């Protein structure tokens, strides 16, 4: 089965760019733009990797992780993506269960490497 990636990101421009990238490497791509939609998509089919933007229109992306944990639908791995990488927000991401925190824009080589590493 192909690797299934869920992109949770409120900017369609960024999602589109990732969609092109992940489709090119053969991943199956799903996307959500809000906390509510993220939870719904993650529960609709098992997710290998969730890419999580932190500032979403209806709340903090980390709420998705909390909710999925409660409901028993955690993805295999989650990478947080943020515009400002200060150590405080980094800590809260790791505590919430993210495998790592990446600073946007993540160079694609780095992004693909991280995904492979955390799914290995």
């Amino acid at each position: 089965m192909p690797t299934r990636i869920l992109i949770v990101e409120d900017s369609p421009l960024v999602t589109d760019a990732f969609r092109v990238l992940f489709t090119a490497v053969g991943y199956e791509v799903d996307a959500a733009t809000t906390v509510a939609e993220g939870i719904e998509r993650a529960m609709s089919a098992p997710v290998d990797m969730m890419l999580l933007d932190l500032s979403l229109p209806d709340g903090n992306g980390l709420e998705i992780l909390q909710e999925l944990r409660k409901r028993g639908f955690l993805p295999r791995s989650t990478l947080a993506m943020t515009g400002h990488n200060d150590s405080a927000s980094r800590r809260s991401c790791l505590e919430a269960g993210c495998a790592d925190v990446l600073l946007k824009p993540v160079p694609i080589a780095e992004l693909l490497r991280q995904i492979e590493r955390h799914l290995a």
Partner: protein
Amino acid sequence: MSMSDRVGSAPKKRLKTLKAQAEEAQRTIDELRARDALKTQFLSNVSHDLRTPLAAIITHAEILRDGMLGDLNPKQRDSVSGIVSGGQQLIDMIDEILTYVRSASDQVTLTRTDFDITELVDQVRMLNQALAAKKHLTIERLNGDDLPPVYADRDKVKHVLGNLIGNAIKFTSDGGRVWIGFSRRGRDRDELVVEVGDNGRGIARDHYELVFREFAQVDASPSRPHHGTGLGLAIARNLVELHSGTIWVESELGKGSRFFFTLPLNPPRD
């Protein structure tokens, strides 16, 4: 009308006028503060909103550059690489503006930990190594192996060091030297002085203050050889002052500059 009323009326009137003027002045100050806060918020929002589409552009360009949608010929690859590096430079400038806005407003808080500042300096030296190598510059750390840990916000001190070392590299010509040194001062030697020096073009005495002012560049003409937001040293100043430290420069035109900042070694614990 009684005698006392007539004597008192002129000063009373004067007092009333003064009070009204003071209130008016206060209203103006409040209004200006509110407008300044609005402008800061606007700058912060715009910077953030500029970042998102730019990130998408860079990702698309990288996908093309790395041949993920098919091979490019060398000329095409060079051109697309130019989009990536131009975009990256813009992102860096936007981040600089965001950092400045945050450091200048009340939103910023320090997260202090104990850390080894020489290790941090070495890390920032490593990060700047490629840039320095391009200009055949050396970046040395002169001393500091026996320093006690510093209790400060590591990310912010790293930013200060990054800005000072980055500037030193930028304004020093090929084959020059950049160095970082430490000393201690104060009654109990409880103030650490960090020096970032270079033997570059230097700064005229008249400009010592100007270089720390936001958006200020000694040469602000459009044809100036060194571009940037002009915020690097203003940010460094704000971040140092947040730590109750001070920052200053000593320089001589044509000989080089020495930037200094202080950090209290034993600040009150949170």
